[in-house]
């Protein structure tokens, strides 16, 4: 066991953190091994930078343990941790030149002068900045400043280097070359790198392991291949690479029904008649003649991408993205095939049939055909429907009865957009309010990790009056 399992250098155990009442990290558990390049990947506001700051000692968790090399280090200030950070905006000291910036940490450690000089010059050579010692940091380009920041952290010889979106401010070409350089530096120096980014390509290129986060929780931890080929849910599949994510129904082991056809897959244990999410990567869809296809559709769009053609094929109401080296005519009918191994089955992010609300009517008027109920401290008015005051009622709101655009403040003022996944036909949006989650459909793209008002269209809802003694039925 010891030979294959690497030593855990830092470990987060059940980390929980709130800020202004909002949950930022919701019971995070994470082990990071020695000499590993780990990337924490997620959309902005998912808690990835906070996780890094907890390891660095700049933020203290509300509960949970930070274990470093077997010792609990909660409360230990940053300067006593054997960890150095490359900050998002470099944070170079403007009053010091390149040499003194890099030497900053060593001088504090009272390293002898000639040794400082030797180490700093060696480190500047590693980051390709030989001869820049006397330059003012203000007169360096973004890429050079970035390398000074990396050298400044590395020269202190810490166990772990934390990198907070260090390439975010660089242009695409420079970013690509810096990605490779960083990976090289990591292999050369044999340090543990913990890297935070929202760029999935960056994560796949550099990492030994990727940690995918969303809304304060870790969705998946795995090698880049695992994350890409075996995403655990629609969020990960959507966030990493391009994907067709479809609603499916498990008919039994290795049998899944999508777009009205039953296909063979390799996943077992989901039960029978279970709604699931199905992921098919665009490069795994094979274009063939209509007779040979498992599915048939009409080509709607063809774009030449250099290495391949990107095609959008309409199957029924649903749009399937295909990457193929062969092109097809726009408007022609084609067959689509996918080998069973390339159909990835995942549990639904939010396994509900409709949004249900169980409540008591607080006000009703038969004359005006209206009633009101309380929801998370706000009063919601239902028009064109009368249910007597005091009745217990269960309201079923189908996914299309919810909307985040409308007049006024909304029935619920601030709901959090947790995820937006395109399902070939609509976007499936998961919203989080104070006490629960909601699922809605939308044709427009929405920005995750933002707050929006939520509106209910009760004309699409169905109402069920519950018997007076408390009914113990599941929603």
């Amino acid at each position: 066991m010891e030979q294959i399992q690497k030593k855990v250098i830092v470990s987060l155990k059940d980390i929980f953190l709130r800020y202004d009442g909002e949950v930022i990290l919701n019971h995070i558990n994470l082990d990071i091994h020695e000499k590993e390049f780990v990337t924490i990947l997620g959309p902005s506001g998912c808690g990835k930078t906070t996780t890094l700051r907890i390891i660095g000692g700049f933020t203290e968790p509300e509960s949970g343990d930070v274990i470093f090399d077997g010792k609990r280090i909660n409360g230990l200030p940053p300067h006593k941790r054997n960890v150095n950070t490359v900050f998002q905006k470099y944070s170079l000291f403007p009053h010091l030149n390149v040499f003194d910036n890099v030497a900053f940490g060593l001088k504090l450690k009272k390293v002898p002068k000639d040794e400082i000089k030797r180490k700093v010059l060696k480190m500047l050579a590693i980051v390709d900045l030989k001869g820049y010692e006397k330059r003012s940091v203000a007169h360096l380009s973004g890429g050079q400043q970035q390398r000074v920041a990396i050298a400044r952290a590395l020269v202190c010889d810490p166990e772990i280097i934390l990198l907070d979106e260090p390439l975010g401010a660089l242009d695409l070409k420079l970013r690509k070359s810096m990605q490779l350089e960083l990976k090289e530096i990591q292999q050369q120096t044999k340090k543990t790198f913990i890297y935070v980014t929202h760029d999935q390509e960056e994560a796949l290129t550099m990492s030994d392991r990727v940690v995918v986060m969303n809304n304060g929780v870790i969705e998946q931890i795995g090698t880049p291949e695992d994350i890409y080929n075996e995403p655990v849910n629609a969020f990960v599949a959507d966030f990493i690479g391009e994907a067709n994510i479809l609603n499916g129904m498990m008919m039994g082991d290795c049998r899944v029904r999508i777009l009205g056809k039953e296909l063979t897959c390799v996943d077992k244990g989901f039960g029978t008649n279970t709604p699931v999410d199905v992921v098919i990567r665009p490069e795994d869809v094979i274009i063939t003649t209509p007779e040979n296809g498992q599915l048939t559709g009409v080509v709607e769009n063809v774009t030449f991408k250099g290495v391949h053609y990107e095609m959008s094929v309409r199957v029924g109401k649903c749009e399937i993205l295909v990457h193929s080296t062969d092109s097809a005519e726009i408007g022609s009918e084609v067959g689509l095939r996918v080998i069973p191994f390339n159909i990835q089955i995942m549990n639904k992010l939010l396994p509900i049939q409709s949004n249900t609300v169980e409540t008591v009517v607080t006000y009703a008027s038969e004359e005006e055909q209206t009633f009101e109920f309380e929801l998370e401290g706000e009063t919601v008015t239902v028009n064109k429907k009368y249910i007597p005051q005091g009745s217990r009622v269960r309201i079923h709101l189908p996914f299309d009865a919810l909307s985040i655009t409308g007049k006024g403040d909304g029935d619920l003022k601030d709901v959090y957009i947790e995820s937006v996944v395109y399902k070939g036909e609509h976007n499936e949006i998961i919203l989080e309010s104070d006490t629960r989650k909601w699922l809605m459909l939308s044709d427009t793209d929405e920005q995750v990790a933002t707050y929006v008002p939520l509106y209910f269209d009760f004309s699409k809802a169905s109402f069920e009056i519950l018997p007076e003694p408390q009914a113990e039925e599941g929603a």
Partner: protein
Amino acid sequence: MKSRKLSIPYIIWMLVFTMIPIVMIGVTAFRDKNGGFSLEPFQKAFGYSNVFLKSLLIAFLSTLICLVLAYPLAYLLTKMRHSTQQTVQMILMIPMWMNFLLRIYAWVILLQKNGPLDTALSILGIHGSYIGNTAAVIVGMVYEYLPFMVLPIFTVMSKIDHNLIEAAQDLGSNSAAVFRKVIFPLSVSQYLGGTDDIMIGDVIDKIFWTDQNVGSAISLVLMIFIFVFLVLMNLFGDEEAIA
């Protein structure tokens, strides 16, 4: 182009109350008591150079004491919660809403014979008046100019990027080292206030009653000094530092 008509009252005001008096001082400084041209007032003016030097010394000492008091206070201020910051700023500002003379008279009352300081010290057997000496003047000046020292230093300090402080901590600095290696070097900017016109101003005031010509000459010399200082500050300081 915008109309300049609106500035006419201001120009008239400046002309009557600033420009004409300056010209008058200029003219008077080169006359003797009988109204003829003379350099005698200047000769007499330099007879007061010891007062002039003392003024400079007091200004220098007051500035130094202000700096010693204001710098740590400004630093502490940056570390406080926002609400506390505002309260402390208010406490510093409120006295400035009062008339200068009233504030100085408050000090006279505090320091005079049988005043609070005298009463407190008499418990230890020390009696006396604490006004009318250089120390009292310096106390008054420090009191007067402390807010003008604290607030700009505080502004400079709170502009220091917090990420730099975190970077310094990250590289192994405890709070003393953060201060020594980052906050201090970044906040030392050329802030030197001009507080050197009160003492010699006193002399001018007195002399003017007896000899207008000599008073004018001293005024002119003083004006030239202040002008030179302003030019120097413009040369060496950046605009933000001259608050």
